């Protein structure tokens, strides 16, 4: 954790007459797994979309790999785009492509490798995320929800990015698959040396995967800290979020594990 990889400063955005971000600042360090949490409508997904430049904020700056992405020209921005991977909430797999074609797509677009090399690299990623070999020629609609998530992850890491964005990676998965997915993310993060930014609601994920958690509220980041520290924060919004019956139950489990 040496240098910042994302620096968001004084972000402001008004959506539908509402200041969703009102001077939001956040820094993500290299090599960490940072989760963004907050209640519904607190602007988690908006923040993610702003980092990916899918949405332009009204004011403020977003620096990724030390470059202000809002002022970059198309070519330089393309270079940044090749250094990050994104897993969308609905996976966003191309439904007319097979799984292998889906994963190979960024390689076809951005490298000059031979088709054979591309196929093998894509297949390696498919196996790395724990999908069986024979799923490679299936279409996304033939895969289960959990497998689609893994497929989306395989596509996100196929260019060996340094930075990985995950939008609610475990939503819609059964507890077992969610747990396996968390482990997978941890594993890949360690071996591939990724920096991971994830938006999540899953309190289990927060405890077992993340290094730091950023809590959004009132258009700002209320607090960024590791889970055990974050829940000690006295801010009523944070207390409300983590001290419901579910939050307490999960906390107790992980705190006992910790001891």
């Amino acid at each position, binding site marked *: 954790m040496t240098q910042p990889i994302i620096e968001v400063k004084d972000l402001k955005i008004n959506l539908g007459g509402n200041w969703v971000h009102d001077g939001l600042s956040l820094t993500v360090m290299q090599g960490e797994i940072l989760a963004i949490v907050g209640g519904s409508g607190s602007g988690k997904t908006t923040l993610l979309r702003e980092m990916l430049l899918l949405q332009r904020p009204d004011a403020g700056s977003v620096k990724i790999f030390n470059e202000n992405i809002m002022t970059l020209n198309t070519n330089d921005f393309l270079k940044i785009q090749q250094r990050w991977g994104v897993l969308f909430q609905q996976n966003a797999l191309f*439904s007319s492509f097979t799984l292998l074609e889906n994963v190979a797509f960024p390689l076809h677009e951005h490298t000059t490798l031979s088709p054979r090399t591309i196929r*093998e*690299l894509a*297949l390696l990623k498919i196996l790395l995320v724990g999908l069986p*070999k024979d799923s490679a*020629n299936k*279409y996304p*609609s033939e895969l289960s929800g959990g497998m689609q998530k893994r497929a989306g992850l395989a596509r996100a890491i196929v260019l*060996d990015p340094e930075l990985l964005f995950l939008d609610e990676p475990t939503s819609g998965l059964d507890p077992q698959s969610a747990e396996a997915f968390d482990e997978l993310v941890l594993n890949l993060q360690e071996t591939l040396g990724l920096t991971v930014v994830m938006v999540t609601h899953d309190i289990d994920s927060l405890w077992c995967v993340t290094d730091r958690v950023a809590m959004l509220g009132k258009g700002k980041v209320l607090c960024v800290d590791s889970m055990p520290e974050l829940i000690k924060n006295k801010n009523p919004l944070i207390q409300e979020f983590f001290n419901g019956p579910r939050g307490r139950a999960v906390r107790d489990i992980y705190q006992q594990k910790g001891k």
Partner: protein
Amino acid sequence: MSMQEMASIKFDSKNNLITCQGEWTLAQLPHLENAISQLNDISAHNVTLDGSAVSKIDSAGAWLLTQFLNKISMSDAINHFESFAIPQQKLLDLVTKYRVEADTIPYAKDLSWLEKIGKTSVTYSKDFYSFLAFVGKLGTEFLLTIKNPATFRWKAFMSIIESAGFQALMIIALLSCMIGVVITYQMGLQLKTYGANIFIVDLLGLAILREFAPLITAIMVAGRTGSAFTAQLGTMKLNQEIDALNTMGVSPASLLFLPRVIGLTLVLPLLTMWADIFGIVGGMIMSNNMLDISWADFLNRFHHVVSLRSFLIGIGKAPVFALIISAIGCFEGNEVELNADSIGKQTTKSVVLSIFFIIIADAAFSIIFSKLKL
């Protein structure tokens, strides 16, 4: 970021030593592949691998290295990676574990021509079967509605009349007016050479009322409304809205399909009549300009030579065309599968099939009417 270090791989045949250096990343992969292809004469015995100078390796680089080691049959022993940094070793071990040849993926085998014919026939017969089932369901729903008229969805019915009928008035008027102009121009040129200018009234009246107005209107409505039916119902299916209706005990047939079918069946004859008027008007304007037939002459001759029967035959075809368009439109919408591709495919299919069957039906009508001497 500093300049990228060039990656390289070298083989020292004296010491049997393979040395890897630099950044083994995806960006360097074409260069490395090239370098590897130039390495020859590596004997698999006692070769050692030195990766201490590798500054960075990602999974693409690791894949290439393991691929290479496999080729010179060094892959069995994993401890070749001792000289790499610890995180790099982990990655190399992981990639070694998962590396497979892409050739070993089972591809779906190509079907022979006989199998293809068989498969296509089965698909078409299945499609036809489910279309019959769909029409049957619509029919029973229609009978149920007749038995209990209070259950008819008037609101949905009215909105179909508005979108499929009222909103199509402008475009149909314009289109049929143009058709009238075009026919008069083409036929007028021929008639003029015989000095038979006034016969344009007969030709125009019969052609527009019997054939062009019903056909053009039906094709326009198939493109405009049939595709809209498929897309709307397909989106609802994709959104599980149709499933939701079914679980609430509301039949999608009565709420969605029946108002569309009945609405269109009512609206299309009206639109055809509208097209009749503008087709004739277009022809009249052209006759007036090109063939010197005055408005009065035209109208005077019109009701003598064009019988009411021609008009009724044209209007009579419209409900049949409407049934074809609405039934196919609703059916294809209902057949949408749960992927984004499907809506486009079904919509195309709906329009193509509608127009195909409209023309088939029109040909059938022509044959029947000529046999009946109508």
